[in-house]
């Protein structure tokens, strides 16, 4: 059972969280401008890497905040977790 650091509540057991999939899949600004193929890439296609992965977790039983986690999908080691607001900064832990 993972130990995940919520940027607000601190280290909590995995059971308090909800996994949210790959991070950084943002909704196209103008969907109608996209071809069916481009739209389906947004809908269904994921990088699904073996190794480093940026993913979304939600502290469902806690503060209900979504945040980002950098986790290795093989070792399951968590490099860092940070608020969505800090996505592009190196802060977080």
């Amino acid at each position: 059972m993972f130990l995940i650091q919520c940027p607000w509540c601190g280290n909590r057991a995995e059971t308090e969280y909800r996994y949210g999939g790959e991070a950084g899949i943002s909704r196209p600004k103008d969907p109608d401008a996209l071809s069916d193929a481009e739209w389906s890439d947004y809908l269904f296609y994921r990088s699904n890497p073996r190794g480093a992965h940026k993913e979304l977790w939600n502290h469902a039983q806690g503060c209900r905040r979504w945040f980002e986690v950098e986790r290795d999908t093989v070792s399951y080691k968590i490099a860092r977790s940070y608020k969505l607001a800090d996505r592009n900064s190196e802060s977080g832990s």
Partner: protein
Amino acid sequence: MQLDRLKTGGRIDRTRPLNFRFNGKTYSGFAGDTLASALLANDVALVSRSFKLHRPRGIVGAGAEEPNAIVQVGTGASTLPNMRATQVELYDGLEARSTKGWPNLRFDLAALNDRFSKVFGAGFYYKTFMRPKAFWKYYERFIRASAGFGIAPTEPDPDSYEHRNAHCDVLVAGGGPAGLMAALVAARSGARVIIADEQNEFGGSLLSGSESIDGKPAAEWVNAVIAELRDRGNVTVLTRSTVFGYYDHNFIAVAEHCSDHKGERAADGVRERLWRVRADQVVLAQGAFERPLVFCNNDRPGVMTASAVSTYINRYGVCPGKRAVVFTNNDSAYRTALDLNNAGIPVVVVDCRKSGAGSLGATADAAGITVLRGHIVSDVIGRHRVSGIRIARWDGDTQSTFDSTIRIDCDLLAMSGGWSPAVHLHSQSGGTNAWDETRHCFVPAESAQANVSAGACNGHWSLKACLQDGIDAGAEVAARCGLRTMPVELPVTTEGTDNPMQALWRVPASKDPDRCPKQFIDYQNDTSVADVRLAAREGYRNVEHVKRYTALGFGTDQGKLGNINGMAILAECLGKTIPEVGTTTFRPVYTPVTFGLGAGENVGELFDPIRKTAIHERHQAAGSPFEVVGQWHRPWYFPQGGEDLHAAVARECLATRNSVGMMDASTLGKIDARGPDVVEFLERIYTHDVGRMKVGRCAYGIMLREDGMLMDDGVMARLGEHQYYLTTTTGGAANVLNWLETWLQTEWPELKVYLTSLTDSFSTIAVAGPKSRDVLQNAGCSIDLGKENFSFMSVQQAVLAGFPVQLFRVSFSGELAFEINIDSAYASQMWQILMESGKEFDITPYGTETMHVLRAEKGFVIVGQDTDGSVTPVDLGMNWLLSKNKDFLGKRSLSRQDCVRDDRKQLVGLLSVDGSTVVPEGTQLIEDPGAPKPVPMCGHVTSSYFSATLGHPIAMALVSAGHRRKDETIYAYLADNLVVPVTIVSPVFYDAKGARQNV
């Protein structure tokens, strides 16, 4: 009469004799015995039969590694299958039996298998039982009947189990010399420590030996350490607690056995406790397993590991034999020889090494023990019990064979093939192991998580080295926890010098490995050297293939005894090195754990919460059966007298249509959404033009998943310029709130909107029917409920019967109806008040079933019943809800090629042509009843009821191109290939104009 019980010694309590039964015979032992030690004390050598060949088997080990002594303990509901006699603590009245052997253990017909063992070689079943094809099920019945060891209970478990979540700086797994030392150092440094040991007392290997520490018997030192640990406030000391699982992020699972040692049932308290430990650091100190030697007939009862023999002598005061031989390739077994000698048992040492042992060798010589150096045991004589062995001189050539052998009579053969550190947990945690060429074993290499291995489990054999390693490990983990470590000095022990062990994986025999008597590697599964060689010969050469093909290590001991020997022997016949062959994966669990332990208290009614509305008890009192909807229990119908479902529903429907009915709709999800950007936000979520709603108005709204499929629906009300009140389906409540929050937080953080769940805070009572207005008026309502003041699809604050409420004029039944939202703290009273106010109109409470019928008569869908994850709003004929003026979630998907097909399955109504058949929900629909299989299906029935109001059955269905097929006849395919014609009609069966609800 305990024939083999030594006069003195052992850690048993001779003042407390205990009676027990084994295979129907009564024996006695002492408190402190295990079933195994007590059986040995009573000279019971034959305890079981092997899995495949049904060879007679005796006790080999003294702990978790035992492969043979697998017994059934206890009776009836509390019987325990597959218990290792070596780990079953004796209690008075213990009832145990072996489950192998028919008609009995001694004379087992299936032992014939042994005669044909070469036919039953590795993987034989893959090569036969194929013809005639039809016979496989008979073959298999026979195979199944002969498989398995234990017998599962057939009654529910009378005992209870519990969990305990714990947190610590340092968890120490194993309470032998190294573990105790590590715990002591960590504890003195101020760390929060948990130390767990699987045995009933601490000490580990010290309990089996005769060493002394600081000049005193080791036991005294152990007691002193434990006493200090217990005294400290920061240490949790757990006995009978097996660390069985090492999971990610230092999550450790420990099984505490609370009651098995006291009796068959956990009289009071729990049987087992699962410690779910989150440890900052872990010290792994579970010691090592002694390896058997692999020689001919090395499975005969009376052949044991040397350390087990020492354990029985020193810990239990039992000597498993009268004349002993010790066969070894290393020094440690000389201790066993000395133990036997001290116990007055004549013993001969057979050491494969020309050099023999180091200082222990000298001690043995001095004690007058015969030591045959440069010799090996080539075969064992005796079937149900060792009666003697054959030995031969050996020059060190592992491939050699010979015939000149000498016979030695004995009834006990203690063997030692060296030691294997218990790297199980280290490996589970992701750590790697390295082969140590000098110690001939795998030792922990890289750690993958925050842990340190110490003592024998780190490859140290001498007591001094283990104690020192424990000190170092304790200091290391304390430091990692950022604690200042207190110096602890190394206790004084007496150390000799050992000669190096000689690798001897397969002991040469008089014939070559394929023809000599069986040389067992895995006792339980009868895996022999010949089997491993056969596997390799047939191309199963990867160690995992060999394991799976020969069942090596698949026994209930998980190969603790045999795996390393097996890998080494595989390496030999492949001409590879052991590290090249590698180990199989060490999977959880270290030793087996009960399902009950994993489930803990989440069984029975606590398996999953039952969510109850504020009015639940009243429904219960009214005798309503409940429908399970997600976690909720909702009243299904309210039977009167002996009414069945259909009678009750018919009555409830008619009452509602003709007068007034009432239902508890509290399980609907309710969300308060407000903020300056709430309109913009909801526009993006819902498909209709949310902004057009006037304050005080209600509207039906739907939301789609991004793939365009219907996700949820409900009524929303605009309570203010910047405040909406959203309702969701019962099952969708949590998902919808999460869905909305997710978009707000991850995609549209710039939108100023706050969402709050009100699902539990407000209860909803729906009053429906022509008389509903009168009922509310009777109850005393602060507002004019007339159409002019309070029109259909509007909302108003009011005081009803003295309670503040929010009144919605919405209808899910098509009748004049009001939905009363009230503070849940008053909902139960309000229900009662309305029942009273409605008396004169014979107000009728109704449940989910009637609600379903009423809405079906109106053609209203239920998300999740009339839809699944593959239905768009267009399929449902809800185009009018899809705004052209904006984008919304899922909109883009609706224009995908497959979503614009005109033959998609679309929602329609169905009438059975015979006017009487109620087609079961889920029934498939077809065009041509005569078509050959596979018959094309054009849809299925999603809802189907007998409408008491209309006097005939009605159904809703999803039918291919249904919208343009009105009045066509298709066929419903019932069970038993029965087919009934049905006509496609509009899904609105009743009051199509909607006049009744708008009055």
